[in-house]
């Protein structure tokens, strides 16, 4: 089981999913019409480290975060 969190302006509760990698996460999230615009512009972190590939395996208890476009300052 992994936990998926939507940060900042994506007003969506967390999900708990049984998935093995980020490819599977992409497939699940792409079915949510509300999310499709966000997905184009979101960065992804696994356990608070940004990732640049979908291939890394996930393990039980991992936390995945979706980070929409930022604007600090």
């Amino acid at each position, binding site marked *: 089981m992994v936990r998926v969190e939507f*940060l*900042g*302006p994506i007003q969506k509760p967390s999900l708990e999913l049984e998935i093995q990698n*980020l490819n599977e*996460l*992409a497939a699940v*999230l*792409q079915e949510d019409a509300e999310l*499709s615009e966000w*997905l*184009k*512009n*979101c*960065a*992804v*972190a696994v356990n*608070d*480290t*940004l*990732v*640049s*590939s*979908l291939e890394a395996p996930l393990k039980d208890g991992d936390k995945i*975060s*979706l*980070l*929409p*476009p*930022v*604007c*600090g*300052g």
Partner: protein
Amino acid sequence: MLELYDGSLDVPKILKEWYEAEATSNYGAYIPFVGTVRSEDGIDGLSFDIYEPILNSWFDAWQEKAKAKGAIIKMAHSRGDVMLHESSYIAAVFSPKRRVALEFIDEFVEDFKASAPIWKYDLLDGKRVYAADRSTPIKGSGLLAKEN
């Protein structure tokens, strides 16, 4: 040092504390950058969400970069609402010589704008409206989107 505050920053107090903390560290240059909420487009203020775990690791990586040049960085940012003409952001570089500090503050502030996990909202008629048009996708965004 990274400091997060609820609401607006007490700029004179923070600038003074940082200056005094490094008073005998033998840095020749101290360059703070202060960001203040401007009155534009009829907003009453801004509001901020921060994701601290990634902000901390992003900041730590910059602190290491600074250290390699003999410099240090300090940063303060607001959480929640900051009204017109109040300040929400201070970043500062201390370094032995001026060139390092002048270049570092510029690079740091630009990367902050592009990468720091902070989300900005306009306060408009009592509502919190995501500042989508001024926001920047973090490098590598779009990983989960459908390829087409």
